[in-house]
């Protein structure tokens, strides 16, 4: 996609490393397409900064604000010197006519986000904490977040590049409780917890376990 068209230069904005592009809770009406540099998406929870994502050139962020003026749900901070194109309601029409591919990209991003959020909601509706945590692995498996495919592994085994904190975050349980559950699964030989990865020995068995816990 050619983004160097002079017509789009007027939407370019520049940030130095460490600059806040926008802050969580700030009202916003624009979204950004990164052209150069990386952007950290982060949230502040209590006294901790949590990195939600690190975005690369070609990626879009801030898209939640494009059609309404709701507060930003996370902060965006420039990691490197960043150049981005900034679009809002006022110039969105120009974007649509000049570069409908960007709008299409946005549409795909929304579709994926809706699915991810629905899937996450499905996890949170499970009242049994064990099932919630097990369902996180099913979700990661569906997303294709598998570490790598080891030919020697049995077909049902999956390794995920996640930490206990990540799993706790997705399951909406506190990390300590999550660790207890994971340790319990480990003693049952259902999973193996490594430093930066977790291996599920039999993903189908976990799927059966979750489905017995899901109501209706």
């Amino acid at each position: 996609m050619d983004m160097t068209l002079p017509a789009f230069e007027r939407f370019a904005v520049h940030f130095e490393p460490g600059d806040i592009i926008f802050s969580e809770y700030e009202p916003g009406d624009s979204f950004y397409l990164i052209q150069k540099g990386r952007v950290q998406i982060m949230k502040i929870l209590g006294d901790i900064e949590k990195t939600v994502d690190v975005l690369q050139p070609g990626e879009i962020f801030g898209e939640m604000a494009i059609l309404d003026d709701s507060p930003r749900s996370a902060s965006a901070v420039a990691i490197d010197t960043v150049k981005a194109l900034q679009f809002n309601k006022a110039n969105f029409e120009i974007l649509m006519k000049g570069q409908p591919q960007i709008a299409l990209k946005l549409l795909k991003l929304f579709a994926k986000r809706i699915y991810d959020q629905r899937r996450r909601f499905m996890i949170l509706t499970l009242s049994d904490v064990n099932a919630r945590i097990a369902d996180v692995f099913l979700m990661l498996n569906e997303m294709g977040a598998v570490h790598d495919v080891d030919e020697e592994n049995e077909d049902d085994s999956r390794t995920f590049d996640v930490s206990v904190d990540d799993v706790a975050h997705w399951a909406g349980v506190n990390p300590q409780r999550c660790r207890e559950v994971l340790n319990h699964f480990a003693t049952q030989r259902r999973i193996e917890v490594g430093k930066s990865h977790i291996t599920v020995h039999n993903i189908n068995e976990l799927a059966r376990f979750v489905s017995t816990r899901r109501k209706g």
Partner: protein
Amino acid sequence: MPRSMTYKSNSVIYFEGDSSNRIYVLKSGKVTLTSHDIETGQEIHNRVETGEFFGVKSALGRYPQEENAVVVSTAEVIVFTVPEFEEFACQNTRVILKMLKVFSTQLRRIHAKVTNMLDQPTMVGPEHGLFQIGEFFHRQGKMKQARYVLERYLEVYPNGPRASRAKELLAGVERNDYLYSGPSHSEPSRADGHGASGEAERPAAASRGEQPGEETPAGRRYYEAVSMFGREEFQAAFKTFREAAAMEDPDFTVPSLVEAGRCLMHLQRHDDAIRHFTSLVQRYPKMEELPRVLYYLGRVYEEKGERERAGGFFKKVQSLASTDETLQKQVAHAIQNL
């Protein structure tokens, strides 16, 4: 090239769970989309209007179909592959715009549902939230970021309840900027000591040009405790919330007591939590937080396995006029899970 297909009555164009790489437009006839509500599990039927696209989200997001598309009376349908649809949409940008509006509404809705379920430790409004972010960066010694957020705060809320505090912090930033402009000044030792003892905060804060006398001591205590809660240090947070409450600052007494009760919940001290919340309701029967406190009582009874009592509290919350929409949803969900 998109092709036209005719489906007979009672046939199925696709099933829920099918992989999807096609997008459809209804040209004539009747098609119904059948799905299940993710909250209630109830079956939902949606009629596709003539000229309407369907199967779009799954195909563009590359995930399985979320509904059954059933033909009610013989239907003619135009079928696009994803690249064909993209080409079509780029020529007809109104289609993209319309879909963006629909998707954005759906995304907002599901996002709100997820947030409600997570039961965040501090549910603050955007005004308070933005201020807290500025305060956070200030505490961390990240003055560049603090300045951006506090300036934005004053721009958006020039007469906000925390505007004068934001101005003070900002003045501090201007005075001490040269001291805290780089990461080497982020004071890791202070951050470590912060959770262990709230007292460690004061000298450090004073040395950065803050004036502790101008912030209410109860407010300071309260936010320290909120941070501890965020770090899941519930025992320390409980103690600190109690201290904040004891200072009898009208703005912070009841919120501190409510949060102290939540610490007891997280510490699994069910009976203490019940006693705490019950006495809170008796002492402050007209407090703004009443619906939320009754909801917490329900939650504690639920955790104790006393479902009937839990249900009683949840129903009470539902019946209160002062229960906000968010809490109504949480309660409805809690009742469903009983």
